């Protein structure tokens, strides 16, 4: 099983926007309840494989999705 990373967002709007952008880019992802040990920022977070993290962050930045860079 490849290593995975959880991306936390400021708001529901951003997590859904991120999901929609990753779907368009055909990048595998899963929406999960934000693990409490990470943050209580927004109820949902995105889990992606670590190998695609840079690509994912590039997409999120270019689309103006507000994620918690400090929690990565």
């Amino acid at each position, binding site marked *: 099983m490849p290593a995975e990373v959880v991306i936390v967002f400021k708001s529901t709007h951003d997590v859904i926007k991120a999901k929609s952008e990753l779907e368009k880019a055909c990048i595998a992802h899963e*929406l999960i309840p934000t693990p409490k040990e990470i943050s209580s920022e927004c109820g949902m977070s995105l889990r992606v494989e670590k190998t695609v993290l840079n690509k994912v962050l590039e997409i999120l930045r270019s689309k103006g999705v507000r994620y918690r860079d400090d929690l990565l």
Partner: protein
Amino acid sequence: MIYFDNAATSFPKPKAVIEAMENYFFHMGGSTGRSGHKMAIKASELVFNTRELLAQLFNIKDSSRIAFTKNVTESLNLAINGFLEKGDKVITTSLEHNSVMRPLRYLEQTGKIKIFVIQANQEGLVDPSAFEDILKKEKIKMIIINHASNVTGTLAPVGTISKIAHRYGSHILVDAAQTAGSYPINVIADSIDMLAFTGHKSLLGPQGTGGLYIREGMEIAPLIRGGTGSSSEKEIQPDFMPDLLESGTLNVIGLAGLGAGVKYILDQGVSKIRKEEMELTELFIREAKKIEGIKLYGPTDTNNRVSVVSFNISGYTPSEIAYILDKEFDLACRPGLHCAPSAHKTIGTFPQGTVRFAFGYFNKVEEIRTVLKALAQISQGEIELPRH
């Protein structure tokens, strides 16, 4: 039944609107942003999609700058109360609806703000240079303007006024109650700082939906504070959009319908909707003018108006005409002051008001012809006033 009361609320709604609402209740049902289960995710996606569709319709780059409200009155109250501070000065026009005038007058009465009211002419037209005359002398925080009058249908030159406002460091709030969905709105091209709209008129959605767009870089205070599903560890309201202005559970079923309404409009095209509504309006105005005893209000040049038309028939009060039309001809319209006393004073119809017809995308040429015949009969005294 003939429905000409689309300025109050549009009818009928596209089938897709009803299906979207039904689909939400049958198959989604969850709350947005409060949980991470599949139903909650679907609901969150639905709300996101409605926001994106509205952003597309109004040329808004970042849809998070739209906050949902329950109607345009709430949107206007949010913009006015959230942006104005003690000592601020504003300009508005004599054509405003009470959803603008009442919150403004309240702030004036409580000594917070000063209001300058620009008088429109009898057709409801405002002269952009009148704004500049005040802006030259006074530091104006914001201009609040009705995009189209709900009484005369007159369009305001929003793009011109906003550019003048910005030259003097002022801001513009546009009340798009009668234009969103039926007239092109481009927040970038028209330099709109805040756009207040409702979902249940020309956007073809259900009642209980509306929104406020706020340009990036502009901050306003919320009307209410509370749970947002975000930053839950903090007892302080989040400062980011849309959560800043959207506390409490959203009207998800309403927003499902609104999204379908906006999708329908985008598929049809606002220009096609505008063209067809104005064809009906032109026909009505052209033929109604020929009927003796009818007085029409608002601009005759259809480039300066939307499909809202006010008129009176001599010898009758507006409510008598509306009553006859309802009882004898099965026609729905709205008589009276339309919550805009200042607009009626402007056109000289205060306090009795007018009869208002507002044609919608689903009205037909035959309906206009039927009604024109009815008005001719009424004005010739052929119809007895039905007994109450």
